[in-house]
């Protein structure tokens, strides 16, 4: 195994594809072990979700939060900052946006409501993400652990709010808030579907981040701090400032995603608002090679497996966790294939060191 001096472009494109191929292979083995017909299971997983317009819309709806969160995480990971608490930042965004919708419930509001909710959601997500950021820059506390612990705290906070102060009085004691007023719900893009304006917002963000990372000084600083911290220090870039910046960026995106999910798809607040988007987005970020456009493609792919997994649960009685296994395996294969980019493998006879 030896280091490559440069990475050929074809390998950079090929490596995620190899990873996907290996995952499909592993999926076939797993389906067989679980006693299902692998051909049918694969069809349900990967083809069925994109075979009609309803399915395609669902894929876009699921991909929206995944891509939004992954965009922010990719920025973090580029800078060697390990924010794994996006799930919590997502929930905080949903709560902050939902708060505005709940307190204005029952009165007519103008068109300012939705933008205000978005701002508030992004702001809350950013603040929640800044906690591990500040703890790392001020005290040197490990951001992996602190950001993850805050996920649990956020989950309990949401649980408290929807069971306590924000509970829908007419909701038969169910742990959920009122259903938002029409002004607080994202407009649909077309009739008879679930596709809302969240998806175009996500696409705009992808473009914005592609420009930010590839074409601006800030993007260069972020990449430099991650790849060559010493050089960044010599260049006079403030590492602490950048750590806080990337945390705020990723938190804001996760918070925005949470608010869009609450106001677009769920239309109220409830404990199970996120099926683990914050964690799955980590896989999306890596599968997308920490690149904004890559994240978009990866997000769509993972969204397909999400829907496929739900369908498989109904049609084939496959446990929903099987999807998580596949997603975990996918991340493994992606990381393994990344080594192919950095190193060249040659067969050498074992010799004593």
């Amino acid at each position: 195994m030896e280091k490559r001096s440069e990475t050929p472009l074809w390998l950079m494109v090929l490596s995620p594809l190899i990873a996907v191929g290996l995952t499909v292979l592993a999926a076939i083995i797993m389906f067989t072990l679980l006693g299902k017909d692998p051909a049918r299971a694969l069809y349900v997983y990967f083809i069925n979700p994109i075979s009609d317009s309803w399915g395609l819309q669902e894929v876009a709806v699921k991909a929206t939060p995944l891509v939004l969160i992954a965009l922010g995480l990719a920025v973090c990971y580029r800078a060697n900052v390990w924010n794994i608490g996006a799930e919590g930042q997502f929930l905080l965004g949903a709560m902050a946006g939902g708060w505005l919708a709940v307190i204005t419930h029952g009165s007519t509001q103008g068109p300012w409501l939705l933008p205000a909710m978005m701002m508030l959601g992004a702001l809350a997500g950013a603040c929640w993400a800044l906690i591990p950021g500040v703890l790392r820059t001020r005290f040197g506390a490990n951001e992996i652990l602190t950001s993850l612990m805050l996920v649990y705290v956020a989950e309990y906070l949401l649980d408290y709010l929807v069971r306590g102060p924000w509970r829908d009085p007419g909701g038969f004691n169910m742990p959920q808030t009122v259903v938002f007023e029409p002004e607080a719900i994202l407009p649909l893009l077309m009739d008879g579907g679930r596709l809302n304006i969240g998806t175009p917002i996500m696409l705009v963000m992808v473009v914005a981040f592609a420009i930010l990372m590839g074409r601006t000084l800030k993007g260069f600083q972020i990449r430099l701090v991650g790849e060559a911290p010493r050089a960044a220090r010599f260049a006079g870039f403030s590492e602490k400032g950048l750590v806080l910046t990337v945390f705020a960026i990723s938190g804001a995106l996760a918070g925005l995603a949470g608010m869009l999910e609450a106001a677009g798809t769920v239309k109220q607040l409830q404990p199970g608002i996120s099926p683990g988007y914050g964690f799955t987005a980590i896989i999306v970020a890596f599968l997308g090679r920490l690149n904004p456009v890559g994240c978009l493609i990866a997000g769509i792919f993972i969204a397909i497996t999400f829907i496929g997994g739900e369908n498989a649960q109904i049609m084939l009685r496959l446990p929903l966790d099987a999807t998580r296994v596949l997603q975990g395996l996918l991340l493994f294969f992606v990381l393994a294939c990344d080594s192919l980019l950095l190193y060249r493998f040659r067969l050498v006879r074992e010799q004593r060191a």
Partner: protein
Amino acid sequence: MTLLEAIILTVITASTPLLIAAIGELVVERSGVLNLGVEGMMIIGAAAGIAAAITTGNSWFGVLIAILAGMALSLVFAALVLGLAANQVAAGLALAILGLGLSGVIGAPFVGVQREGIGKIEIPYLSDIPFIGEILFHQDPFVYASVALTAGVWWFLTRTRAGLVLRACGENHAAAHALGYRVLRIRLLAILFGGGCAGLAGAYLSLVYTPFWTSGMTSGRGWIALAIVVFASWLPWRAAVGAYLFGGLTILQLHAQSAGVPLPSQVMAALPYLLTIIVLVVIMRARRGGAAGPACLGTPFVPDR
């Protein structure tokens, strides 16, 4: 049995899985590898352990399978970070996600199956001593195992040549390599040990602590074990202190809840996680400029030929 006795006993049961998992991870990190997948290996141990115990009707067989399952998962991790020199943080996250998913698939047929947990050992005569006897000499075997494990790891790391070599790999892998030690092989063994410990900790949860399976039953304990290693400054005995501190706080929170402390239950439930954060901050403040972790922690090693 007095109330104090009862509280101490529950603290011990809550702390033991944390201690076992933390000691395993401590050895891994001392060899220079950061395995963030403790949560995944722990829960796969819990699921595989109870599945094996229910199928065969033998709890001890379940424990064995749990250890093997933890090791198997850690082997996947080792292949990635040692064999392919992949990013350890990302690989650890992948392990956690994979473990949670796999455990759900394995545990699905066993949801809600109640079974008898592994009982306690009574040490004759000694356990008759009032108070101390009940606490020290009437425990389940895991508690004794966890103490033995801590002592053993302490002895291994500080008193044996092999322990010194393992620490050398963690502090400066290039130097250890130059001296002719097989860095990758030593790290592989450390990772396997860590996996086995995490699996054992998981088995404790599903076979003793709550003798049935619920999905996601580790509820962040693997991550807390990681925090304990940092808290302990990578020293085995301090890991024991840390584990008992966290265990104690968890139990305290339960008792405060039942005593009717006027706080929402969610606040109490979130306390252990908040405390983890606070403890991490305090310890990092106190250690300002002092000893940090092993110098090569988290950096991949590629032997050049």
